[in-house]
Every structure is written in C-alpha cells, then in structure tokens.
C-alpha cells in the first residue's frame, strides 16, 4: 500500500532533512548540534522515504550501501584520530588550521565521521528490518 501524498512529501522532505542535518552538523561545535544529531536527522529523512516508497527507492537515493557509509564514517573518525600523530601529538588530539573564517580541524573531520557512522549504522538496521519483513 503506497500513499502518493506521502511519496511526494518524502521526495520534498528528504532534501530538507539532509540540508538541515548538514547545518546541524557544521554548527555543532559552537551551538546545539553536532555529528550525532545530524546523523540521526539524516537517517530520519531516509526513514520517511522508506515508509513512503520502500527500501528500493531509498537505496537508489542513497546510492551507497549503508554499512559502507558507516565504514567510511568510522574511517574518517580514525583518520582524525591520527591527525596529530605526525607532529607528535596524542591520539585524537585536535589539530586546527589557523584560518580566521574557515575553522577547519581534525575535530570537524571527526564529527563528520560521527555523522556518517551514525547515519550508516541506523540505516543498516532500518533496511535490515524493513527488508526482513518483506521476505
């Protein structure tokens, strides 16, 4: 049973969720938000799409296997953890580029890793449950 209204709504809602999730991710260091919340919001966007259109459509929209997405996230976080190693820093020590407007840092990379790991993990679970039920 597919609802066309929900389907159309989901198509519009997904980009909104994704944009707001990125916004939440990037502002996280100085205002409420962060990679964890951002990842959850993005996962919710896909959850709505799954409800409306099924997992096949969601997979097409995602374009990448959710567990691989999670793996990429974990890899980003790990890379960030080694960021300070060449300069003799401790594991997971933050490293900041001294730019006035663009606060790039290994900490941001770590947060991006959190975002993708959470998104990938949650979607892996939702896909498995949803597809498990179909069979």
């Amino acid at each position, binding site marked *: 049973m597919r609802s066309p209204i929900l389907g159309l709504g989901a198509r519009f809602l997904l980009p909104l969720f994704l944009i707001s999730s990125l916004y939440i991710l990037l502002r996280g260091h100085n205002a409420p938000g*962060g990679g964890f*919340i951002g990842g959850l919001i993005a996962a919710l966007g896909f959850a709505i799409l799954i409800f409306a259109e099924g997992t096949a459509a969601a997979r097409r929209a995602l374009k990448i296997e959710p567990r691989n997405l999670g793996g990429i996230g974990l890899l980003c976080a790990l890379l960030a953890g080694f960021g300070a190693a060449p300069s003799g820093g401790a594991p997971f020590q933050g490293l900041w580029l001294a730019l006035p407007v663009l606060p790039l840092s290994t900490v941001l990379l770590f*947060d991006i890793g959190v975002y993708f790991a*959470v998104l990938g993990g949650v979607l892996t679970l939702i896909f498995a449950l949803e597809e498990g039920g179909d069979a």
Partner: protein
Amino acid sequence: MAQQESGQGGVSPARMAGYLAAAIAFAVFGLVLAQLERVSGSAILFDLDWAPSLGIGFSFLLDPLALVFAALISGIGGLIFIYATGYMGGHPQFGRFVLFLFLFMLSMLGLVLARDLITLFVFWELTSLTSYLLIGFAHDDPRARRNALQAMLVTASGGLALLAGFILIGTAAGSYDLAVILQGGGLQQSPLYGAILVLVLLGAFTKSAQIPFHFWLPNAMAAPTPVSAYLHSATMVKAGVYLLARLHPLLSGTDGWEVSLTLAGGVTALFASVIALRQRDLKQMLAWTTLMALGVLVLMLAQDTAAALTAAIAFLIIHALYKAALFMVVGAVDHATGTRDVRALRGLRRGMPLTAVLALLAAGSMAGLPPFSGWIGKELLYTGAIPLLVPLLLVSNALIFAVAGGVALRPFFGPPPGDLPSGALPSGALPHEPGWQLLLGPLLLGGAGLLFGLMPGLLQPLLDAVLRGFGLDHAAGLHLWAGGSLPLVLSLATFALGSLLFLAAPRLRAQGEGPRLADRLWDRLLEVFAAIAAWQTRVIQSGRLSRYLVISFTTLALVLGVTLAARRPALAIQPDAPLSLWLIAAFTIGGAGLALTPHSRIANIAGIGTVGIGVALIFLIFGAPDVAMTQLMVESLAAVLFGIALLRLPGLSERRSPGRRALHWLISGAAGLAVTLLLLAITAHPPDRQLATWFEENAFTRAHGLNIVNVILVDFRAFDTFGELTVVLLAAIGASALLKRRIGGARR
C-alpha cells in the same frame, strides 16, 4: 595422509613458501649460533616498553640456555620445512600449513627468548594456539579436531595456572624482568613459594605432558608427521622443560621441588616406556618414548648437581636430534608404504636402503649405543641420577632400547614385504626411496648425533656456559669412554635387558596396546562440563523475553529497595515546581498510560514516544538543548524501528493468568517506585560541579568550541566516542546479519 610428490613441472608457490620458511629458519639458526661466544660472557638483552605502568616489557634475552633452545627450534625447524615440502607440498592447503608452522616457530622462539614473564606467557599461549591449528590441520577428520581441542584445552589451562604463577613471582620478586629476578636470587624463602611452585609446575607439566596430563601427547599424533617431528618431539613439549630449567635457580633446592619433579618425571618415564613397547603404530611408539624422554628430563631437573643438570641439557639436545630424525624416517616409510603398522612392515631395506641406514643412524643414538651421542647421554643420566632411581632408569632405558629396535630394525630387515594392509604397494613390488627433502633431515640430524658422540668436546663449551647460568662452575665432562665405572656396567645391563625385551615385544604387542584410562576420563570430564553448561543455559537462558524482564526488574527493585531501606536517604520533594513542569509531567504520565493500552501495538509505540518527548522537553527546560535534540531524534527513530518490527508481529492477545498479571503489576510497580525514590534521593544532594567547571573553563580556550557537549564528544572524549561509533556500527551490522539469516533459514 601423505601426498604423492608430483615431481614434474615448476615449483608451486606453496612449495616456494616452504623453502623460503626453511631459509629464514636456517638464517635464524646461524644468527643464534654466531652469538655463542658473546653470550657465554653475558646475556644479550633487548627491550621495548609495552605497559610500563604495570612494569611489563616486550623484552627478550639471549643467554646460553635460551641459545640451546633457540638453536634447536630454528635448526630443526628449517629441516622440518624442507621435509614438509617434500612430504606434503602437493597438499591443496600446503600454503596454510607453512603459515601455521612458521607462526609456531616464531611463537616458540619468542617463548625461549622472552625476558619478561608476561611476554613469555603470551608466547606460551601462542604455541598452544598454533599447535591446535597444526594438530587439527586435517580439519575434516573429527578425530583430528577432537585431539587438537584436547591438546589445546590441556595446555592452555596449564597456561592459565602459569599466568597466575608468573604474577605471584612478579609479586614476590618485585619485577617481571627475568634478568632482574634471576639476579635477585631464589624465591625459596618467599611466603608465596608454595603457591608459585604448584602453579608453575601445573603449567610445565601440562605442556611437557607429565602424568597425569600426558594423554594429549599421543593423541597429538593425529597431526601430519612433520608436525609430530617438530612440535611433539623436539620443540613444543620441551617448553615445559625449558620453563623448569629457566626457573630452576629460583625455585629448586626445596623438598617440594625435588619430590614433585622426581615423582612426576619418574612415573612418566617408566609408564610411558612400558606403553611404548606395546604400541603397533610406529608414530605412537615414538610418541610414547618422547613422553619417556620428557619424564627423564624432568627427573634430572629435580636435582641441582652439575652431573644431573649436565645430563638434562645434554640429553635434551641428543633426544631432539634423534627423535626428530626418527619421526621423519617413519614419515618416509608411511609415504612409501601407506602404513605405519610395525606388525605389517618388514624387509623395506630392499627398496629403501638409504632410509634404512638413516633409521639405524638415529636409532643407534636412541638405543644409547656407542659411538652415538645417545651413549654419552645415557652414561650422563646414570651418573646424574640419585641411586634410588637407577633401577627405574635402567628399566626405562632398556625399554627404549627395545623400542628403538622396533622402529629401526623390524620395518627394514627380515624377509621381503608381503601384501600391505594399505594396498599402497602391489604384491611383490618394492617401495621406492623418498625424495631428497625427506632424507636431508634424518641425514643431518642423525649425522649430528653421531658427530657429537665421536667428538663430545664440541658440545662441552656450550654445556659449560649453560651450567654457569645455574650457578655452577662448569658442566660434567662429556666422554665417549668414561672408564670402567658403574655407569658402564649399567649400560651393559641396559643392552642385555633391552635385547630380551626386543625379542619379547611382538608377543607384548599381540596383547593389545593397553587401556587409555586418562584419555577416557578426559572424555567423561568434557561430557560433565557440557552437561553442566546445558543445565545452566536451560535455567538461566529460557529464551522468553517476559521471563528475562521479570528477572531484571525484580533484581532492580530488590537491590534498590533494600539499599534505600537500609540507608534511608533524604528525598528532594519539591511541590513548588513551576506550572510548566507539572504540565510536562502530566503529559509524560499520560504517555506512559497510553503505552499500557492492552490491545493495540500502535498505541503502545505512540505512548512510549510520548514519554520520550516529555523527557526531551524536560531536558530543554533545564538548559540541555543538545541532549533534548538527541532525545527527540532517538525517540522518532525508535518509533520508526518499533513500528517496523512490532507491527509485523501477530496481534496482541491476553493469554496470561490473572495471578501472573498481578505479579507483573507488582514487579513493575516496585521497580518504578524504587527508581523514583532513587532519583529523588540523588537530586537531594547538590551535584558535583568539579568536572563541569573544568569543561566550562577549557572548552573554548583549549578546544576552540562553545558547545561543551559537542567538544566533550569530539575532542576531550573523542577516543570514547570512537569506541561507541564502532559499537553502533557493529551492532547494526550484526543485527542485520541476524535478520537476514533468520529469513534465509525460514526460506529453506
């Protein structure tokens, strides 16, 4: 089973790996021997911090004792790799075999070179693990799997005792560094000595297969022959002997040491040599004589005289040489004839004259005949033994003499071979000599056994250096002709008695190989364990969710209730809360009521979600927007997941009896009340602001972030977060795999 040599074509990558491993082993052998001069003065040390806060180092030392073992391990190891390449190079999984064997060699080298006790323990367990993989190499054979598991369980549980013993040594000596511990003198006066002795002996006796832990070693013959030749004669089973020798200066000299080692070694030596003579399988005969040798080594280490210790170290080397060679010869016989049954084999010298000569070369040393090194070893044993044990040694040595004849004479001499039970040889055909890979090992090892017999002076400096490590000036002298003394008389008596036993052996073998009592007891023991585990699982893990919940919540209510009742803490009851909070509380309680709706799952999910949103609102009011946002997201996702999962279940129907329902109400109510009281009691105290203050002060200055929660997550506690991420992802992947498997199972 032995694989046939293909012989033609190029060398396969797996064979290349075998030769490469041999080359590496020989390189290690050369490197180790090159250090002999240096090591005789002082040990070479190597250090790497591992866990400095615990005083544990990843450190190694090379002293004469370690050198003896390292040279045996690498030298024989190299020959074994060449042998294995000829023996089973065509096996489809030979590459894997080489890997396992190489890992084993590294573990063994690590064990004997370890300077830190914990490092030693790690390598000790690694040898158990790799030996498990090697014994169970023919993993489609249930017997091999069973015997591999048996060997690992016995040696690894001994390893656990050893770990406890090492920790006690570390406590008593104040260091885990062997170089420091050995400098510090013995532990015989320590109050922990008794416990240390028991635990260390448990470790050593299980590894070196002393009675009553001996049964795994003959079973380990399920391994391919190269493994038996390497692990179960020359190296791994000697690990226990190494440990006893290594800790000898620390622990020896007490009645406890002397009695337990003498008893275990003596009983093992005698028992094993009797059983050895009754075996029909050549490999089993060798396995039981290995037990005898281990028993004798332990027996010698019980003493602290120069004669006994010289005998121990010399016999260790001599035994490793001839036993590995004989295993290789037996493998060659098996390879050529397809059987190892001593009753069926005879006259093989007609087809395999070279193999026959090599068998005699090694067996001469085993029998203790002059001029082989075994002769010197036997004389040393008789010199080193306490008078009480001489009759026991005499009998054991005579039995070994008879077994040596059984291994080297019976299969090769006599009338030409008839039809073999294996059918590997057509009637009347002669077996062929094996390839050079199978002959090189017995040739070099047997040759070395003869060389050391003719020129015992070659071993003398090495033994002197080792004995200095035991606090003695020099080793007893090694002589081919020690004069017409008591040991000479004993040797002659050994030969006489041994010859009689050799002639009587076929009749003994006809009576059967004897019961394997300990082996059967082991099976019973495992059955008992399995029964206890099954019973415990039935009782604790019923598989019913409602029962788990009942147990969890009853425990929670009881533990909290008793604690609260005993402590009677002050409760923070604030009836003057603002109206908004009262409204949120009412909203949340309403949600909880909705979650209890009996007949609708969707109402339950909505109710739980409502409770979550109420909690999120409370977080928001108390100034934790991050937590509130997370809570909202998690609640939404939980509703989605619950929705997918629960709505597929069959409809709710109430089938529980009223009594059970009342019980569930009671437990839920009690748990809820206890948690409420706990929260009221906690909030009665002002929270500890120490950590919060630190984070507030440092979040911006050190981590350039204004959002403290986020800074903690991604910077201050990033390592924790990383661990949590891994868990989240693994849990999701695990759940997804479980769900897919369940569906797959249903389809089938």
